[in-house]
């Protein structure tokens, strides 16, 4: 008789898949997580939305709002760059984004974030969970929430994919990229350096037949073990192998060489360019949440030189991505967001740097019914304060999710406990939502 240490639900099955995703990504973060699975019952599905997606571009370190979305040329804080017109009459952005400027009719700018924070780690957590960070608590990442809401039951790929550079010393983001009480099914699968997940290809020297024989043997051992001592851990391990095989069969999803030479050239050879092309590919394959990180913008020294360098890498691939999603009809169902953990100080320091600044900065959104071409809120003449329509991370979180059809006033029901999907004290930026 089969014993059900694991709850046996579809959710449970996906928990085990998450183990595999992390293994494939080389993270191994889910090792030993099986014991967590038993206590996670099926979560009520309060969502109506399907077939929507979120593409979040996270500019790590804190991109300068003055060198991007809220330029203040010829003021004491403005820096040396000029403002340029965009495809939206009357809306100007920094001259460092000439290609993005041509796509602004697909996007909207929120120029009035006041998140009252200048700490990197806290900023990452707050922008990606929509809540104030509380020491000791662990809230699900936007990617996990989105995946929970939008991931079809039979979807063969992970629902929450993070595309980033290899972790370096500054790995603040990955610490807070988990699914918390939503369970490891919705934890991110990370892809590094534009390459497919580690070990996705069958090892050289292992023939397909040998691979099948090995898997058959493993399956027999597994079944024999499960028949006597079935545990959540053993189920998780078994399912991990199953999903590994699923992913290995779909390795082409991560293979940029399948894109046309023209597209590969358009997106360029930079790592971020490749990541944007990969993001397009993942969105086309229906992955509900894709986050592309670009680093680094923590420019305490020579802010202007470094923003030329970093935004020079960002601008054209990002603009191509927006244009391509629009051209292919995907933007109607794909919410694009460009965020950071905070902005940068209007005051320019003695080494031409800008420091951390959460008091008045900007985020960009578009697609999925977000009103295109809008500018929400404003700052004063030199960008030191928000003067109209103050919003924060909580409001942005509500807005992203509502744009893809999630009722953010609802709750997650986890083991009989109710967890608000988003901070009940906040709400969506309603004028952005169609």
């Amino acid at each position: 008789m089969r014993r059900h240490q694991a709850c046996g639900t579809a959710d449970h099955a996906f928990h085990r898949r998450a183990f595999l995703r992390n293994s494939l990504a080389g993270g191994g973060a889910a090792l030993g997580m099986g014991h967590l699975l038993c206590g996670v019952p099926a979560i009520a599905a309060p969502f109506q939305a399907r077939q929507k997606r979120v593409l979040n571009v996270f500019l790590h370190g804190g991109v300068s709002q003055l060198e991007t979305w809220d330029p203040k040329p010829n003021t004491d804080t403005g820096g040396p760059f000029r403002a340029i017109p965009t495809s939206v009459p009357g809306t100007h952005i920094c001259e460092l984004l000439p290609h993005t400027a041509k796509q602004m009719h697909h996007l909207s700018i929120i120029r009035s974030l006041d998140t009252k924070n200048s700490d990197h780690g806290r900023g990452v957590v707050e922008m990606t969970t929509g809540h104030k960070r509380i020491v000791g608590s662990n809230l699900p990442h936007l990617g996990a929430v989105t995946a929970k809401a939008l991931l079809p039951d039979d979807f063969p790929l992970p629902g929450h994919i993070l595309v980033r550079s290899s972790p370096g010393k500054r790995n603040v983001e990955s610490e807070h990229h988990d699914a918390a009480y939503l369970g490891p099914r919705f934890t991110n699968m990370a892809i590094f350096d534009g390459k497919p997940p580690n070990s996705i290809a069958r090892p050289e020297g292992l023939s397909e037949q040998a691979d099948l024989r090995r898997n058959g043997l493993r399956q027999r051992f597994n079944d024999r073990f499960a028949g006597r001592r079935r545990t959540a851990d053993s189920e998780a391990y078994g399912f991990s192998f199953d999903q590994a095989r699923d992913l290995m069969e779909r390795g082409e999803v991560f293979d940029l060489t399948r894109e046309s030479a023209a597209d590969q050239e358009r997106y360029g050879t930079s790592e971020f360019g490749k990541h944007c092309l990969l993001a397009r590919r993942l969105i086309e394959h229906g992955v509900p949440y894709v986050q592309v990180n670009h680093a680094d913008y923590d420019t305490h020294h020579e802010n202007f030189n470094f923003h030329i360098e970093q935004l020079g890498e960002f601008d054209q691939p990002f603009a191509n991505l927006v244009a391509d999603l629009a051209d292919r009809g995907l933007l109607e169902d794909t919410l694009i967001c460009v965020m950071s953990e905070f902005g940068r100080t209007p005051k320019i320091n003695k080494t031409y740097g800008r420091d951390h600044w959460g008091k008045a900065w900007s985020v960009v959104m578009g697609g999925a019914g977000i009103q295109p071409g809008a500018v929400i809120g404003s700052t004063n003449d030199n960008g030191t304060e928000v003067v109209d329509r103050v919003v924060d991370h909580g409001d942005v979180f509500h807005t992203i999710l509502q744009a893809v059809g999630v009722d953010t006033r609802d709750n997650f029901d986890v083991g009989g406990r109710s967890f608000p999907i988003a901070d009940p004290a906040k709400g969506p930026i309603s004028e952005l939502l169609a």
Partner: protein
Amino acid sequence: MSEAEPTAEPPAEPFRVEVAVEFKHSRPLTCCHWEPLSRYVFFGAEDHLVHRYDLADGTVISLAHHDSWVRDFASSPDGATVYSAGFDGVVACWPIAGESPQPLRVIPAHDGWVRAVAASACGKFLATCGNDRLVKLWDAADGRLIREYSGHEHHVYNVIFLPDSSQLVSCDLKGFVRAWQVDSEHSKPLATVAQLHDYDTTFRADIGGARGIAVHPDGGLVGLGGITKVTNAFAGVGDVAVALVHTDSGEVVRVLESKEAVKGTIWGVAYHPGGYWVGVSAGGGGGWLHFWDGQNDHEFAKVKLKFDGRGMSLSPDLNRIAVAHADSHLRIHELTDQRPATPPAG
């Protein structure tokens, strides 16, 4: 073996540097330039104006044309014209004197920032460099483009003429130094000054380039000022440095550093005919004037400034140094060389 001759003790401070003039502007300064006839010091700031400080009466007039900050200046040798280079990609040519100068001409010089402008000693040419990776040679008389030099693969940070006006030397973000013939398209890669470039693997960004440039009067060496040994590009944690490059062989003859490893960047360099290189620095270590004899790696004198310096210019009489400060001040320092008439050997 002859008995060593007694030598006088060198003074405790080889240089006495005193602030003689202090002018407070409304914005932090970006650069300064002492014009050849010593009537004015021009400076740029975090505004869109060219500022002219009158050394006789201390008044300042501000000239509008640029659409961004002014990064550099040069003058015609006769003291008639000053050239301002802006982050708007433009070089504006102004009469130096007069109550209310207007641009004589405006040269749309580069796509992106103009990072430096230089005037030839013969008075015939201007040279510019910029973020479009180009070096350009202009006719100083009419602003006509004479030649466009391509070869750099990164932003070109600085350019200078050799004293005989026959060649240009330029340096880019990655410390690649190139020499260009004024009278032909000929150019050659001169040197790679690896000490003036780092790629920060944590922040994934390049830092480097020649923030200051100067040439020895005999044309044999060019001094390139910047930052070296960078451990954190985005916080500017590195040491000041001036690389001396032989203009013929391309050999990096010496990299001048600070004895106590002053954290920061050299933002201005000059060669003083008294036989030493001067650099001004800004950064975590504060503002300093560094004095190197060129024979030793470390400076023989170093003077703390009131604040970080973003540019400097020697007076034509060689006794004063103007410094553009990040605390919105233009300060003119009087320089007294207290070294023995013949410096001790070594």
